[in-house]
């Protein structure tokens, strides 16, 4: 059954892509099978830190069905043993001198099938000499700490960077003069984006043409092609990266991993397609993690709750290679400087020390635009610590310190210019949905009955949509994005984008944007992404940038096309262009509504009846560089109850009011919020990458790396306010990461609130039942 085309901008249009996903017809990298394709497997280090004395692959090479075993030494001979990272460091493709984390790539086997490749791994003999590992970042800078990156000239310790921002002295003064100061140490533990589809590729080098095609799980195919060209020396125009359907990215598919490089090298050597696909364990152990920030937060305030200054200090663990995802070398802590958030803070200062450790490299922005989660978590925890100190209602304290809507566009003390916002309205809406007063009453009763109930509030602003190009870049390429639109003779359109959906619903929402601009149904717009040969150059999808940047490009390219359509319409209607008006559905002659043409008619004319002096066709391309980032915001409330006997936490309610400006497809927005809340609540309650003292990875399967399931998720209560972005052509902002940024603090605040009668002021994530039980018993709560 084909539904009548009818959807446009703002509609709750069912996702166009879902038909194929629900029917199991998605086409992912692992579905790609090329003639003559070989398979591969990676030998990985069992040690977190060890010297490699020798790698002997001879027995593996003798196994029937094995075509090649590539080692670090082989790559070194080609100058490919190391590759650049997004943060300007180097990362070993295959280890040569040492292994620096458990799971690091040591050798790459190519064979007829997976099974043989896996068997061959067991035949490779590596002579390791174990070294003392650094697992705890607090030990990284000790005098006697082993130097992890002894491959780097001049690197005598494990320091990656020291960074600071803000006005140190002014902040110091604020603290000296304040009536009240609070301070709290906290750890935002290491987590992993854990997309359902692991990373992988099929590299296909054609020896007859010299073309290299790589089907790849890439959130940023164009940027990856350029990096491939730079690393491999192959000419960029002969590299084609195709990102087919992607089963979730969440930041995990932004970096280039050794497996991609090895598969490409193997295909070059063998002249046959080579597939590399990670196992779950490999994905969890070796690809980019997120967070791992040890933070100290401080607030200086007046007795009546006005914030005078905020200070934070970070110890950042970036693992064995600094593969931090950051929009340029000026952001070693990403957008952490947004930490003053939605509050009118007169003085702020942040400093960070980044260190190497014997853990997987990273970190990337797991569903959060460049360290914003860490920043907001710190601030929202500190607001509650301050509220506790002042014995003030946490909602009230926040209200008192919000930037007011009259202050917009507000420039924060850290230098960010906010594109509109009404934080009071969002919080009021959340409190209304929650029934805050009744909730407080309910809590009083629960406490009388000896039940442990908590209410947590979190209000925040996000910062998403990098560029502007002058401020943000990836490997030097400015962070614009692009859209190319063509209307065909029957009025059907193809829209090609520089970004790449991994589940965000681009095929639907971007079609709706065109529909809204051109008055054609969204069903008649086909969206193409992910193939570098067939889409305009763009920087990709992450950090909630698709709608802010590429969505703007789409609106603008559609308007360009409409401008040309107007010329054709004038010719068709035999009227002057200036006499035409656009109704949203067609051009008509002002004052004569019976004389008009719609986009379908104009499209046909564009190929059959163009005015003199005009080229045929109806198409355009736009590269959009945003003037500023967008600042979606929200107000969240979480209600929990804790089982005194077992320490288990039940999230009873979760209220999320989000303002992402104008909603292109409210249903898609809500879907993204649901997913983001599941990620954020999961991080608060259970998601964690743990290591033992030797650096052994303890969470390499989904039985051990716990993510939230529908059984733990509450029924989300969503609300919205709509404050259009002041600069986005549609008034829209990004949204899919706001819930991951805002929700962890809401959960932790609720749990601390629940336990506050027993003197608890802070608990680190994850809030495992065992951890909560310990707190209960330590504070004399029995059951």
């Amino acid at each position, binding site marked *: 059954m084909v539904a009548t085309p009818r959807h446009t901008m703002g509609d709750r249009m069912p996702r166009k892509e879902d038909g194929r996903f629900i029917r199991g017809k998605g086409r992912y990298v692992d579905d790609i099978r090329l003639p003559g394709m070989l398979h591969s497997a990676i030998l990985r280090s069992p040690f977190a830190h060890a010297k490699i004395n020798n790698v002997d692959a001879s027995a593996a090479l003798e196994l029937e069905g094995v075509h090649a075993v590539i080692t670090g030494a082989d790559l070194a001979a080609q100058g490919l043993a190391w590759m650049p990272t997004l943060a300007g460091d180097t990362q070993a493709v295959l280890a040569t001198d040492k292994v620096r984390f458990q799971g690091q790539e040591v050798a790459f086997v190519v064979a007829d099938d997976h099974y043989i490749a896996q068997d061959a791994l067991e035949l490779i003999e590596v002579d390791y000499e174990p070294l003392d590992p650094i697992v705890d970042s607090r030990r990284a800078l000790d005098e006697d700490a082993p130097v992890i990156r002894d491959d780097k000239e001049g690197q005598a310790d494990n320091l990656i960077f020291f960074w600071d921002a803000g006005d140190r002295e002014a902040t110091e003064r604020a603290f000296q003069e304040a009536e009240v100061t609070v301070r709290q140490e906290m750890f935002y533990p290491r987590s992993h984006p854990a997309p359902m589809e692991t990373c992988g590729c099929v590299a296909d080098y054609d020896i007859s043409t010299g073309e290299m095609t790589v089907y790849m799980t890439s959130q940023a195919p164009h940027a990856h092609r350029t990096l491939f060209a730079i690393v491999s020396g192959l000419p960029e125009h002969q590299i084609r990266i195709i990102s087919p359907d992607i089963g979730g990215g969440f930041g995990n598919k932004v970096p280039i991993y050794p497996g991609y490089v090895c598969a490409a090298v193997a295909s070059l050597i063998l002249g046959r397609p080579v597939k590399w696909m990670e196992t779950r364990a490999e994905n969890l152990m070796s690809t980019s993690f997120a967070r791992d920030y040890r933070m100290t937060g401080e607030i200086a305030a007046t007795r009546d709750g006005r914030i005078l200054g905020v200070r934070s200090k970070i110890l950042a663990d970036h693992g064995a290679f600094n593969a931090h995802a950051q929009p340029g070398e000026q952001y070693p802590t990403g957008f952490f400087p947004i930490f003053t958030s939605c509050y009118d803070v007169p003085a702020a200062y942040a400093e960070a020390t980044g260190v190497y450790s014997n853990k997987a490299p990273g970190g990337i922005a797991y569903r959060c635009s460049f360290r914003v989660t860490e920043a907001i978590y710190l601030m929202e925890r500190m607001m509650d610590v301050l509220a506790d100190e002042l014995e003030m209602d946490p909602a009230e304290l926040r209200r008192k310190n919000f930037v007011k809507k009259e202050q917009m566009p507000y420039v924060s003390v850290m230098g960010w210019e906010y594109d509109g916002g009404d934080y009071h309205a969002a919080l009021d809406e959340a409190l209304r949905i929650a029934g805050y007063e009744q909730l407080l009453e309910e809590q009083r009763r629960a406490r009388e009955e000896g039940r442990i109930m908590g209410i947590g509030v979190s209000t925040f602003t996000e910062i998403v949509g990098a560029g502007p190009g002058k401020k943000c870049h990836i490997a030097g390429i400015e962070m614009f994005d692009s859209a190319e639109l063509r209307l065909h003779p029957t009025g059907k359109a193809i829209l090609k984008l520089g970004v790449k959906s991994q589940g965000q619903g681009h095929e639907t929402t971007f079609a709706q944007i065109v529909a809204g601009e051109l008055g054609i149904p969204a069903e008649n717009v086909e969206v193409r992404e992910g193939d570098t040969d067939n889409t305009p150059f763009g920087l990709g999808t992450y950090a909630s940038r698709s709608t802010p940047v590429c969505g703007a490009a789409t609106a603008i390219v559609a308007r360009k096309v409409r401008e040309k359509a107007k010329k054709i319409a004038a010719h068709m209607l035999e009227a002057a262009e200036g006499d035409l008006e656009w109704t949203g559905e067609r051009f008509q002659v002002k004052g004569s509504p019976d004389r008009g043409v719609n986009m379908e008619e104009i499209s046909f004319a564009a190929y059959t009846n163009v005015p003199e002096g005009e080229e045929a066709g109806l198409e355009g391309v736009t590269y959009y560089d945003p003037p500023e980032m967008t600042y979606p915001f929200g107000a969240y409330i979480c209600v929990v109850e804790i089982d005194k006997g077992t320490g288990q936490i039940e999230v009873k309610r979760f209220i999320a009011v989000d303002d992402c400006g104008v909603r292109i497809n409210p249903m898609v927005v809500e879907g993204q919020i649901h997913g983001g809340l599941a990620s954020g609540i999961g991080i608060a309650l*259970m998601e964690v990458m743990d290591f033992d003292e030797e650096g052994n990875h303890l969470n390499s*399967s989904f*039985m051990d790396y716990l993510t939230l399931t529908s059984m733990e998720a509450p029924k989300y209560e969503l609300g919205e306010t709509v404050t259009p972005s002041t600069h986005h052509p549609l008034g829209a902002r990004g949204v899919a990461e706001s819930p991951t940024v805002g929700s962890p603090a809401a959960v932790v605040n609720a749990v601390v609130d629940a336990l506050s009668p027993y003197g608890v002021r802070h608990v680190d994530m994850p809030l495992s*039942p065992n951890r909560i039980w310990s707190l209960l018993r330590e504070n004399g709560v029995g*059951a």
Partner: protein
Amino acid sequence: MQVPARFEYEVATSVEGAISLLQRYGSETRLLAGGHSLIPMMKLRLASPEVLVDIHRLDKDLRYIRDDGGTLRIGALARHKDVLESELVKEHYTLLTDAETMIADPLVRNMGTVGGALANGDPAEDLPAAFVALGAEVVARGPDGERTIAVEDLYTGPYETVLEPVDIITELRCSRQPAGSAYFKVERRAGDYASAAIGVALNLADGKIEDVRIGMCGVGSTTLRARETEELLRGQRPGAELYGRAGERAAEESNPLEDARGTAPYKRDLVRVLVGRALEKAVERAEVV
């Protein structure tokens, strides 16, 4: 893709056939039932059997749940799902229904079998603890015929049972029908193995606990039975104070090890709390009858 090492594969068409295949191929042979414990271990190469004997075709002989004159009989190939959906089980052996709602997820429950859950010997497996509480026994068939083994006597260590490599479990049998029973489990998340779990099945006489059995899961190197606690409870009038003492005794009887699911003191305290809760629930259910 995680892939197992090379193995041979045979499909058994009868129980006798399965036994003779086991005999023919020797000790590196494993039965394959639902595969939801064995195949993950093979993929991680923690198990590398040389031969698999697949018994899924024996559904017609071994997949049933029935009442045989007051004795519950569950065929070894009954799925978790069958147990969960059985009205007979729900009415008379409610702790099994309790346990099944918390075992894994619907996908695993559709495939995983009762026989596999018992034979596997994972000390954190739920069904063995529930069956210990019921006082059930497994029926094992080997080349020399059939014998029965009380579930509490089945395990000698983690993943170790008294079964011979040539034995196949054909049935679970339970002749005791408790008046009330309950199963309580703490898991870090739905689908997780137990941090600790407790099964209780009891009868009341004259308002006193007449006969009670307690199975414990995830708190020792094998499935445990809390015999001293049972002793403490027998002949006593139910009530909060008694449950408290029973919980404390059971906690002493448990022998948990620290792992990702919790520290030893935590798990021990869970035993205390869950024994209290399970007793209360089981008594409540017995009183309704």
